[in-house]
């Protein structure tokens, strides 16, 4: 197991290195630079600014400085936020994005799995149709539409909830739901088909023949087996959802990380682009690694095959 994890860790580091290097060079290829302004900065001042930010150095030198800083965890000052380091920006935004993300995960996993299980157990009946319906809605309607609608109905018309911002529990309800809907839909669909697959297996018949109670059959045999493939898709989902989403956070004015994925590129904020990418890349890689490990723990077949190989 330790060897397995060490190998995964090595690949993870290589992956992150490739991602940040590719980002570093690609962003330099975007026309313009972080100091560009519609109203031109006086050339002499611009020269001084370039020097100040180290942009006058040759690209490879900038790259090595960047890698060195990154290795020590320093991601530099943001260009756009002139008094804040990228570390501070991430430290400020990530807990909020993560809090929203975790809420959405909890709602999404519970509702999604429940819906999937109920649908499979009521195959081709009312609950099944309802769950398919929810899945289609959740997958096909973009988050900002849901977000805007929620805001309009519950914020403006009914005045039950505050329209936006991230302050009290009431403020979190709409964004949590808007963010979890996609997850609910995906999980419900996935869980449903996975369950249907399991229901048809011989060992279910055996269990029935053994005279196990229906609850035990569902709980110990069907769900436990059906949930495995679902865990695979959870890794990337968690990474995406806890690091913040542009649309939901923008619509609900939530001070998370989400908006920086778009804004940093628009503003060509080099340090913020690379910092955010490195951070997101690491979370994604770590999540995938955790899923791999969790998979090994949950599924005895994988454990065994690992041991024998």
């Amino acid at each position, binding site marked *: 197991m330790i060897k397995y994890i060490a190998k995964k860790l090595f690949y993870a580091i290589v992956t992150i290195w490739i991602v940040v290097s590719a980002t570093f060079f690609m962003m330099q290829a975007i026309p313009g630079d972080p100091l560009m302004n519609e109203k031109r900065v006086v050339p002499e001042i611009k020269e*001084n600014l370039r020097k100040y930010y180290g942009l006058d150095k040759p690209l490879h030198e900038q790259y090595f400085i960047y890698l060195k800083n990154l290795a020590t965890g320093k991601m530099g000052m943001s260009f756009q936020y002139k008094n804040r380091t990228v570390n501070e920006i991430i430290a400020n935004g990530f807990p909020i994005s993560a809090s929203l993300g975790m809420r959405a995960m909890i709602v999404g996993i519970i509702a999604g799995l429940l819906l999937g299980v109920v649908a499979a157990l009521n195959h081709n009946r009312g609950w099944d149709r309802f769950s398919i319906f929810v899945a289609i809605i959740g997958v096909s309607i973009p988050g900002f539409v849901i977000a805007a609608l929620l805001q309009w109905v519950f914020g403006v018309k009914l005045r039950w909830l505050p329209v936006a911002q991230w302050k009290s529990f009431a403020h979190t309800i709409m964004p949590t739901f808007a963010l979890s809907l996609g997850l609910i839909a995906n999980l419900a669909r996935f869980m449903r088909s996975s369950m249907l697959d399991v229901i048809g297996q011989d060992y279910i018949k055996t269990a029935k023949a053994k005279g196990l109670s229906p609850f035990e059959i569902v709980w110990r045999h069907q769900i436990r087996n059906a949930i495995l493939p679902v865990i695979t898709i959870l890794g990337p989902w968690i990474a995406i959802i806890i690091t913040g989403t542009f649309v939901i956070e923008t619509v609900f*004015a939530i001070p998370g990380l989400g908006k920086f994925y778009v804004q940093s590129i628009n503003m060509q904020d080099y340090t913020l682009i690379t910092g955010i990418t490195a951070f997101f890349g690491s979370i994604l890689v770590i999540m995938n690694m955790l899923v791999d490990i969790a998979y090994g723990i949950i599924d005895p077949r994988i454990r065994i095959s690992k041991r024998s190989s």
Partner: protein
Amino acid sequence: MEMKYLMFYLDRWKTNSKKNKGGNVVSKKRLLSIVAVMLAFAMILTACSPGQPAASDQTEGAEQTVGTVQDEQVLRLSLFQEPGTLDWQRSDSNIEIYILSWIMEGLTRYKHGEIIPGLAEKWDISEDGKTYTFHLRDAKWTDGQPVTAEDFKYGWLRALNPEDPMSYAYFLYDIVGAKEYNTGEGAAEDVAIKVIDDKTLEVTLKNPVAYFDYLVSFSTYYPTRKDIVEKYGNKFNAEAQNFVTCGPFKVETWEHEAEMTFVKNPDYWNASEIKLEKIIGPFISDNQTEFNMYEAEELDMTIALNADQKAAMTKGEVKNFNDGSVWFFDFNVNHPVLKNVNIRRALTYGVDRESFIKNVSKRPWIPALSYVQPDIIPDVNTDKTFREVGGDYFKDNDVETAKKLLEQGMKELGLTQLPKLKFMCNDTAEGQLYAQAFQEMWKKNLGIEVELEPVPSAVRIDRQQNHDFDISYAGWGPDYPDPMTDLDLYTSWSGNNDPGYNNPEYDDLIVRAQNETDRVKRFELLHQAEAMLMRDLPIGPLYFRYTDYAEREYVKNVYRKGVGVEIDVVYAYIEGKNK
């Protein structure tokens, strides 16, 4: 200065509003019923999710006036987005500049289109108009220290320090020795800022700058405390508790990316004139969210309003203000065809601005038949604007004249057919829509075929700067309320002269105006310069942009204008909210 941000945020706002508009239109009817079911379901689920609120609740304060008829003096407005910096010498965007004007003050203050004394009680100007002596009043920083002439000198030299470059340093270039110091050719000691005593500051300028009393109201010119800068270093003005200011309001809280609040500064020298007790400024960058918050009575005004929102609005009133920008075609005057003035005139005269505004942009803009903005730039006698005195230079949609000029121009060039011109525009939905409208008009009115070149705005700016275009869709916003802010753009040495216009006569007019101490003569020269520009048309004016916004009827005296401080709430107050 403002231009990038102004355009950036208006463009973003438009993109955002488009996105949301799309969302609402598609979804409202169809999905409402579906969503209702979903929501019932979700309410139960989300109620189960654990967790603590991320921050304490404090917005509702404004709503609760306990049993009094007195209006609580609290104003709630969106600040759009987290300011890049509130270090006033370093600031270079609109939003930063207006927030700073609430918490700081310069030697003068630009109040509702007029210069009034600020931290300087009075000032003397020498005969030649080049030496200003400012006499400071007794004013205090929020930590109780007096504001001194030394604080100004320190702040100004800080703005010019080449070791710690500030993009707006050029705002001080009119001062003798300033540019030299900033570009590393001179020393700090040679900059002509002299502290006579604690309360007297003397500045010597290179030219008699007619608008210098405005410049000293601007954030780059704010006084700065050396001890505070040294204490906080890079965190100067970066957190609520780090601010030491001397303006009408104080920063109370700053939750990054979320919200700022301000309270009245009781020690401000003119505190009796300030009525608001508190300003609550959440950062709401999505224009539809801002509108929804306004409709839900969570905000008292909006930054902007689009046509759909205008129609849907149920509260308060629609107002509009000149956002300061003028929009035009940039003609590359070195292009083999566009070098001909008659062709440029034909292209300018032959489009229908009135119809464009009414049918395409659908915003409260006005056709530009001249260059310098209306409303915001006064003439020599300040009761009239430069625009009112200058008037229009050509007619809108003058197809007849345009056709004749086109024919004449082609004859001069020896052409029987125009080669296909390229028209560069932003690649946003709106950028392309607007450009297409003019493309269509040229084709219909003049039979001129033009090819669109939609590019990302960064590419457009880059190519404009390198004169790498035929025609480009461009705009400009003023730095200060004087026609020079627009007119010196087209001097041959200007870094913003995208068309490449090079006319020694024009250059001469501008230089003469810059050195003229007689105001009447100076304005004559400036009008002559504008007339020359409108004769040669290196740019083809299109429209002056105005922005709609919503404001509740109980909000009084908020002043908006597209030059300097865009949202001035310093003298605002609330009246009649608790009727």
